């Protein structure tokens, strides 16, 4: 990898003090723990000044009791190189505290591809993305209530699904 990640971190920290709090390396992968409130600014800077044009993945993790803050929104950002071996991928992790509606800024305006990924995270974890143009459930029915990928949800709990199914049946019969 020809890219100096440390210089990017220091540039980011200089522009937005305290934005990158930690750099982790494991199995040849680089993770940056970033400040949740600055996520949009960090992503914009990474895309515009450091050529991270591609959002490979956006997901979230629920640590429940293992770790605080409870949720972590994870971004995999990719930079294409002129040559194959100059591709760089880094992971950004932003902790989100537990509350009635945990929230973080949306990055849809930075990468359009984040649209559906953020909807999925909202659907599965109930994390609200501020500034998302169309934050609706994507995988589960729109009238579904729980957030299934939260760790305190039982995988076999089919009650809410059955209620949605009944409602859809009744609507169809009208």
């Amino acid at each position, binding site marked *: 990898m020809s890219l100096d990640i440390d210089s990017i971190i220091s540039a980011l920290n200089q522009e937005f003090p305290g934005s990158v709090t930690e750099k982790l390396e494991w199995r040849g992968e680089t993770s940056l723990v970033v400040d949740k409130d600055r996520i949009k600014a960090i992503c914009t800077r990474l895309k515009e000044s450091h050529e991270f044009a591609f959002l490979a993945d956006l997901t979230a993790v629920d640590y429940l009791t293992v770790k605080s803050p409870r949720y972590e929104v994870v971004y995999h950002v990719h930079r294409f190189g002129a040559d194959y071996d100059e591709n760089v991928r880094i992971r950004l992790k932003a902790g989100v505290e537990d509350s009635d509606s945990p929230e973080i800024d949306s990055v849809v305006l930075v990468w359009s591809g984040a649209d559906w990924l953020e909807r999925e995270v909202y659907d599965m974890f109930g994390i609200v993305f501020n500034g998302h143009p169309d934050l609706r459930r994507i*995988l*589960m*029915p729109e009238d579904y209530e729980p957030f299934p990928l939260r760790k305190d949800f039982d995988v*076999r*709990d*089919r009650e809410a699904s059955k209620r949605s*199914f009944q409602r859809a*049946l009744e609507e*169809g019969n009208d």
Partner: protein
Amino acid sequence: MGVNADPALGGEGFLTTTIEAFANWGRKNSLWPMPFGTACCAIEMMAVFASRYDLSRFGAEVARFSPRQADLMLVSGTITYKMASVCRRIYDQMPEPKWVIAMGSCTCGGGPFDSYAVVQGIDEFLPVDVYIGGCPPRPEAVIDAVMKIQKKIELEGAPIL
């Protein structure tokens, strides 16, 4: 069924049978399946319709994607609760008489997906005539199921509406 091949008829002859037996014989040999494919089993179902296994040998090759023209629904693939209402609606749109094959473990009983989103067997909301196990079942098993439906039509029939 009676056959009359009396030479006095000039070699033409005729059959006597009941209308019901005649109709069921026709139904049995010209099933029009409606492939309700959602997942992996749908790919095996396509293989059943394609050249090697060729379901048309059993008179059931005219796959109809409109439920109003079909009399056999082949539900293949995982049915989630989100999809289930659609599945039920399409079944309701099919004209009588109609038959249903549940293809694959997911439609029979949820398969490996014992989770919050998946219906644990389509018989929760649909009457099923033949179940095929397997994940996915081999094409031979699907052909066997179609033959079972044919047998069922022959033995039980359906009223003529």
